[in-house]
């Protein structure tokens, strides 16, 4: 089993699925010769050619809308939105069309497309190359939203997403692309959508996170472990559909729940997790369900001092765990 970076795992998943299924095509801006601005599709154009690796015009609504049509006529499009920040021109196609086609057609048409997009801050990307967009899509019936935290899950979940009969938004925290490495089996394997995983077991506090924040939560958990605070970390992996059972089982055990994400707090995805726990685990709670999230500003500013102030860090998570544990 080889050790791979997160981006290598994504690339490998794409390549293997394209080899396995000739209906799979990749389309997006610069996904061809250049191999994508982060090189997620590097080498695919050379192997599969112009027909299956399509450099599109600079038009996101077209990328989503053409994927929907291509899927209706038998293809399995995997679209790349260059940065999640640029997915908004495609909102109408994703929310009004992709998410509703099966429902509005009473199940007679489907929309098996996967839309990949790098998101998140911490790479000097400033206001428009740092955003977290998961909350917008997690709210929409008909969509699935996947956010892996490890190379293993990235490949396994990507294969599941591509094979899924419904539209999947597949979000990759760009700060993990090269900084996170892990073992990735060669060849075919899948990780099921809609299943969270307990990445670290603990008894005092449950931290619910996804993507990069899982690593920060584990870091924080290690810090407070020395202080005798045993933290359980739940990696959601898929945020819609949400694996409520795993989250609730953990909180019913620990009695304390901290939800962490980089996106701003108000109306963010953490609110759904917190509301779920507050309603379904009410009798088990020994402390308030707490949210730790990015500040109420539109993404991360450019200047390093501002970006640093913006970011959710292991230190901030550790502090929140201590506060909750002490409640």
């Amino acid at each position, binding site marked *: 089993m080889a050790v791979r970076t997160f981006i290598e795992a994504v690339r490998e998943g794409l390549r293997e699925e394209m080899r396995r299924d000739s209906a799979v095509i990749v389309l997006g801006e610069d996904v061809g010769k250049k191999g994508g601005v982060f090189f997620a599709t590097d080498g695919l154009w050379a192997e599969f050619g112009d027909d299956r690796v399509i450099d599109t015009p600079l038009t996101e609504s077209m990328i989503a809308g053409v994927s929907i049509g291509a899927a209706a006529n038998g293809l399995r499009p995997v679209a790349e939105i260059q940065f999640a920040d640029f997915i908004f021109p495609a909102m*109408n*196609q994703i929310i009004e069309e992709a998410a509703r086609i099966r429902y509005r057609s009473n199940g007679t048409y489907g929309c098996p497309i996967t839309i990949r997009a790098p998101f998140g801050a911490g790479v000097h990307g400033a206001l428009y190359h740092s955003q977290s967009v998961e909350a917008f899509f997690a709210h929409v019936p008909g969509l699935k939203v996947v956010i892996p935290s490890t190379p293993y899950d990235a490949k396994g979940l990507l294969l599941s997403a591509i094979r899924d009969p419904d539209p999947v938004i597949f979000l990759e925290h760009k700060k993990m692309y090269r900084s996170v490495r892990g073992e990735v089996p060669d060849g075919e394997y899948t990780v099921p959508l809609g299943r969270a995983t307990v990445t670290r077991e603990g008894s005092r506090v449950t931290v619910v996170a996804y993507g990069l924040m899982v690593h920060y939560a584990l870091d924080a958990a290690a810090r407070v472990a020395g202080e005798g605070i045993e933290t359980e970390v739940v990696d959601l992996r898929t945020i819609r559909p949400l694996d409520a059972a795993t989250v609730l089982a953990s909180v019913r055990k620990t009695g304390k729940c901290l939800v962490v994400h980089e996106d701003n707090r108000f109306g963010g995805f953490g609110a759904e997790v917190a509301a779920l726990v507050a309603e379904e685990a009410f009798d088990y709670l020994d402390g308030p369900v707490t949210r730790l999230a990015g500040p109420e500003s539109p993404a991360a500013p450019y200047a390093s001092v501002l970006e640093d102030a913006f970011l959710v860090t292991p230190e901030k998570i550790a502090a929140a765990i201590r506060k909750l544990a002490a409640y």
Partner: protein
Amino acid sequence: MYSRRVTNSGAPITPDPATRSGLPAARLREIYRLMALARALDERAWILNRSGRVHFVISAQGHEGAEAGICAALTPGRDWLLPYYRSMAAVLAFGMTPREVMLQQFGRADDPGSGGRQMPAHYGGAAYRIFSSSSPVGTQALHAAGIALASKLRGEPQVTTVMMGEGAANQGDVHEALNFAGIHRLPMVLLVENNGYAISVPAEKQVAVRDVAVRAAGYNMPGVIVDGTDVLGCYLAMRDAVARALTGDGPTLIEAKVTRLTGHSSDDQQTKYRTEEDLAAGRGRDPLPAFRDELRAAGLLGEAEEATLATEIRGLVDDATDFAEAAADPDPATLTRHVYAEPG
């Protein structure tokens, strides 16, 4: 170029329809029948609405000629259709039955497009390669491009036709779709049914140019203007577009100048924003009598045939109405089904 040449008196001086179109008389009568059937179903829907039996009607009256002519050049079963809410004639041409049209109008469980989930005239039919249509206008242009892309990549001879109004054609999605279709030379045709209004907004306030078709040049495809009252002119334009699509010559934009004979929908009072002259001029451009007279003049439609046809159509519309009205509503227990694919 496709339109009927006319004398100064305004009388057509074209050869007879069969010669002009190369279509046998029977086929020409079929096209007329399709238009008349669409019109009759549409008129019935209004009666049902005014008598409180259906909530909503959005009408195809005035658009049937363009759609019937266009679809006459297509091959149902092989080709794809992305209709819009005035595409009654087109969906019938693609095989949808009067009963199915009425099931959709009543929002019954057996509505083939949505099982009663969508508003009337939101057509769809997997059995007929009619893609599921939504309300947000213009989005279907991109779906058409995607469907055509798949045909092209598989090398499948297949033409995708997408229909919309001139107002919808201003949506960014349509620009992006035409650009993509032009780049990839997709086997696709965009039919813009220009009736001069987007609900109440006249074309001069919503389209910067008189002819939407001139935009085709900006996407490296032919832009063809046809008279929506000239059914065979529409057919001939589409015949060429289909030939281009099937031989890899790429997409075509066809603009049909049509008229909206009714209000925008059963919720709209067009007298509030249209003058009597304007409305009268519109009524003068009804494609149904125009094509009927053409066939009559050429001796392709006799009084006997017309009478038989009228009876047949009345029967079909009555049957469809009774069938759909008596049909079952969706089961409320299905409210949250098909949000996602169901196992098995």
